[in-house]
């Protein structure tokens, strides 16, 4: 079993729904996006091209971040996922330098400090962390207890973090939040080892390629087709 993803560039409308779904599911801080985008504009008016490439951790088979991590904080998990153990992370940032995709982020400041504030913006509109704890809850009022089973709700300063393919959802038989949130169904997740899976079929049919394939990292997020408005029917 090797989890992989296909992103159909022709279906992707660049709405950033995946980015926000990921943020809500994994409660990343303001500065950190596990699911993100590469936006490029090229050409000269009137022949200008705008390209939107949705991107996240590629869960590489030969993950450079795993090889570079001195403490095994970055490691390979079940289904070939590249996972991160924040308890082992020493903040050396070797994974960030070694990741050729620039998808690992660092908690420079103490994350989620606002979640600990006990005053709301408007009266009655805010559940403070104190109220949550008084009610027997954990983490922050904004946190998602389901994802907290796989990764701490409140991160530590001085550690890295990145996409984990919503491992808690995969374990429950669901798709990652970004996949479910995509309005144009541009994303498909599945087993790359199963030739009959939808991801395998799409990769075969459209000759899907990962980003920076020449590096041989064995990235498992594949892109198919390109944005061609005239073919969008």
């Amino acid at each position, binding site marked *: 079993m090797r989890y992989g993803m296909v992103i159909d560039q022709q279906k992707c409308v660049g709405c950033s729904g995946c980015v926000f779904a990921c943020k809500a599911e994994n409660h990343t801080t303001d500065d950190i996006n596990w699911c993100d*985008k590469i936006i490029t504009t090229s050409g000269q008016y009137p022949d200008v091209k705008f390209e939107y490439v949705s*991107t996240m951790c590629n869960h590489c088979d030969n993950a450079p971040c795993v090889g570079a*991590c*001195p*403490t095994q*904080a970055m490691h390979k998990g079940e289904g070939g996922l590249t996972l991160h153990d924040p308890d082992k992370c020493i903040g050396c940032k*070797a994974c960030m330098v*070694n990741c050729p995709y620039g998808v690992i982020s660092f908690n420079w400041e103490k994350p989620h400090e606002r979640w600990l504030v006990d005053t709301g913006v408007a009266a009655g509109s805010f559940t403070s962390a104190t109220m949550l704890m008084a009610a027997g809850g954990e983490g922050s009022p904004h946190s998602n207890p389901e994802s907290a089973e796989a990764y701490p709700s409140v991160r530590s300063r001085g550690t890295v973090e990145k996409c984990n393919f919503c491992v808690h959802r995969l374990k429950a038989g669901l798709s990652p939040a970004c996949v479910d949130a995509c309005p144009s169904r541009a994303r498909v997740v599945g087993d790359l080892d199963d030739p009959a899976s939808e991801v395998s079929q799409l990769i075969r049919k459209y000759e899907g390629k990962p980003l920076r394939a020449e590096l041989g990292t064995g990235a498992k997020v594949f892109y198919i087709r390109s944005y061609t408005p005239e073919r969008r029917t």
Partner: protein
Amino acid sequence: MNTYTSNPLFLVIAAAGLLFGGYFAIEELFIRPSFVTNDALVWTLPLVTYVFLALASTGVSIVMAHAELTGNEEVNAHKPALLVAALSLLIGAFAALASEMGSPLNMFWLLLSPNISSPIWWMGTLYAIELVLLGVKLFGLLGDKDKGYGQSLTIMTLVVAIAAALVLGSVFGTVGGREGFSGLDASLLTLLCALVSGVCLVPLLLNDKVQSSMLQSGRILIGALALMLVVQYIYLVGGAPGELNWVSLWMPALLICALLIYQSYPAFSALVAMPTLLIIELSFVIQGQLIVLGPKQTWLGVFQSYMPNVAEVGILVFGCSVAYLCFFVLCRTLNHRIES
């Protein structure tokens, strides 16, 4: 040993540096981030301070061990000072690194959860071993117990020091996704920087002009680094894909100046060479990160520029001050022990 341990001005400067740099180290560790770092430019002057001091320590260790093994009496006569200098520089390096990693305790995870495929693990482990070896040698000197295992300890120190300098380069050289880092030349650069640091610092500790036994090797090493930089410049100025030209011609020019005055004015030679080495190491470490990768481009732009801020300079001052103060204390302890 006397010049650099009895000058009150050096001590006052180092104490002031400890306070100045210590403030920023505490701020970075416990209060808020104060460095000019972001998700694309993660290794800056504080890490380079570690690289600079660790390579300087390595260089002194190599020169010292080489002199011991070849029976160079001119250098061996000052073995205690060289040993203390190598140890102090390494302690200063680790002090700077601790401020860069978020918590000094983080470094212990290297031992508790090792990943032997990681160059950083090897680098940390080798420098930790080097620290222990130098400590054992010092303990042997203090207790006059250096007789039985002295030579094997020296061989081990030499091997570990050379390996540590090479592995430090491989931390950058094995980064496949960044053309500016990737390649064997990174290890060659760090080894040469270490050796040049050694041949420039050691004469300062000998309280004399550069001895004839060191003169030739010192000149060859400084010249070799200058030559490597010129070759690198020619290669990069031609426009290697994905690489930025981080070498300026004044770098090898300054090294040549240091080479020319190496025999007559070793202190001035070191004064020229050591800051040049720091800038070479800084330029190398920074250039590999200036091209932003992936989605960070959307937020930070495709290219970045870098200029250290006061806090980062503070960590450089902090590391150097810790190294000097350790040198001062250890030299005093050794002197006191020898006198008694």
